[in-house]
């Protein structure tokens, strides 16, 4: 049998983690039920489909490996000097002709660009409500990156407030953006209550109660 020619260096995955919840299985497509109306004119079919995906981060991998290591990795264009978190592996400036960028470790400091207080979310996030979501600019970056702001009452979030980036304990990290969050920088104090803060507080209070009712 002819030796198969390899066009790329084979990758050897030596650190392998599997933290899938128990009972989640890829059973393939299956019709798992139906319902028919009392006049027997309308039928609904229940289709179940569950699939494990492999997201191959490829050239973006340093960012996600950085998360596992408790670092925020960004990139910088050697030509124009622009830097980004989230990282770009090629420069966005058209005059740089898609220049390859360099990976750099970013400081764990950021500043709120804008914020919101979520009282509803996707199915996987409902139990964590209310969530303060901010878009913050990591020091040195040209762009903002979204993440949760912890360590604050939801109505105390402010435009422009200084933040620090905090990572989960190493053993709990999964290599996703949820491995870190923002917290107010040392020394930051919330401003006094205002009518807007009272309004947000009033909107948020029922959310705490509602979350308690979730199984």
């Amino acid at each position, binding site marked *: 049998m002819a030796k198969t020619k390899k066009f790329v260096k084979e990758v050897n995955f030596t650190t392998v983690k599997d933290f899938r919840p128990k009972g989640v299985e890829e059973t393939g497509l299956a019709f798992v039920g139906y319902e028919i*109306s009392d006049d027997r004119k*309308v039928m*609904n079919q229940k*289709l179940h*489909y569950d699939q494990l995906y492999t*997201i191959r*981060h490829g050239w*973006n991998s340093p960012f*996600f490996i950085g998360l596992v290591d408790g670092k925020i990795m960004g990139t910088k264009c050697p030509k124009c000097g*622009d830097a*980004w978190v*989230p990282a770009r592996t090629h420069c*966005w*400036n*058209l*005059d740089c002709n898609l220049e390859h960028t360099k990976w750099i470790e970013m400081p764990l400091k950021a500043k709120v*660009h*804008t*914020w*919101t*207080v*979520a*009282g*509803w*979310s*996707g*199915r*996987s*996030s*409902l139990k964590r409500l*209310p*969530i303060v*979501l*901010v*878009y913050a*600019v990591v020091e040195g970056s*040209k*762009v*903002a*990156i*979204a*993440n*949760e702001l912890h360590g604050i009452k939801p109505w105390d979030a402010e*435009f422009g407030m200084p933040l620090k980036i905090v990572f989960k304990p190493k053993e709990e990290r999964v290599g*996703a*953006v*949820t491995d870190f969050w923002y917290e107010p920088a040392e020394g930051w104090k919330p401003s006094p209550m205002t009518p807007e803060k009272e*309004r*947000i507080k009033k*909107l*948020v209070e*029922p*959310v705490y109660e509602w979350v308690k009712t979730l199984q």
Partner: protein
Amino acid sequence: MKMFIVSNLLWVRRERKITIDIDLSPKISKYWALSQWYPTEIRKLGDDMARKVCIIGGATTPFDYGPTGFESIEGGAAECIRETMKDVPEFRMRDLDLMIYSHFSVHFGHQLAAEWVIHDHLGLVGLPHFRIENGGNTGGSALYGAALAVKSGMHDVVGIVGWETMDSVGQSQGSEFIALASDIRYELLVGGIYPIYYAAMANKWMRDNKVTEEDVASIAAKNRNNAMDNPKAQWYRNEHKYITVDDVMKSRLISYPIKKYDCCLMTRGVAFMLVTTEEYAKKINPDYYCTVDGLGLSSCTIRAGDRLNFPGWTERYGPNYPEMTEFGACRASAETAYKQAKIKNPRKEIDFGEIHDAFSTSEAQIYKALGLANKDNMAQFLRDKETHMEGSIPMNPGGGLMGYGHPVGATGIMSSIEAYYQLTDMIPKKHLSSKTQVKDANTGVVNSHAGTGTSISNFILRRV
């Protein structure tokens, strides 16, 4: 001065030498120098393409969200065409020479290439067909594609079928499916759903433009109340009530400053529209067609945070635009459409619009991007109710996404059809009364919008 050149400077692949008719007037040359990569600027924005694009008919199924469903997708498409045939009795299925299918997510349809199911059900085997997908701007992009097909001279009679079946999963799961159109590596797990991203953008926009929660709540009430005159609208078919600004303010928090009633609806629905040449329109439906005089399509970043300092925008509009608050792609595509339609002052020259009110806040942001108001007069523009039925430029008389519904692939088609009804005086026939008819409507804007403002199209439709 007009001349033909052989160009290898343009954005097209260099090895393809093409001949393009360009106008080398000083103004155009300036644009060329400023931004060589914007093909529309140097290609005279399409207004040298002689073939006019017309909309000559269209209809939707009722829009709804329900566990039983009320038709199959192919059945719904067939019923939309049957209704169109009642309005346009001379139209024959055999006249179609291209079908464009407008559908957003396979996750809702649990069927890949579902357009193939619809297409052969309609008896159209042999006819060319393809699907267009562009997030929330899928419908607008399908109209853009159909218009290009007609303008190019390749096709004369193009049918568009748009649909989405969002009630195949629960609302919370549905929100998460839609959020798969955000960058899942960086955003899906931290925000979870689009309303949160939109709320973050709107919170700063409202502060910067001195717009209050009540100001945008009036938009939410307006669109739902307009829908109460539209029997196909989801709001009419379900909640079925007139609401006030106070009702919006009291609805549950989704993500500050957005409450439940500031959000559009999740919907099952199908739509069909006929896009043709002027020659065909005059022959088949001479008294009930409108023209598409301007079409613009533009793009922005997938992650809203990435549009800060983006060189492409800075080059075009200067620093600090679109920030994280403005819809740059809406402004850019509107400018293109206005230029083609020779609109200089949109506030005065446009009579109404059917626009993408995914959220009450984004409808207000769209007003600004369309050039209807600016930072200084935005709040007053809202308080004067200029976009209500009694105002000078009614927006979403058909109910919009908050009232009619938002079955993503069908939405832009629905908006275009409503605008077509306005421009052909068909509103009293299609709605319950003439309450939501815009008096003496001559020019309308149709807007379709995707992502966090990631892809946006604008169209200028005119009465003939």
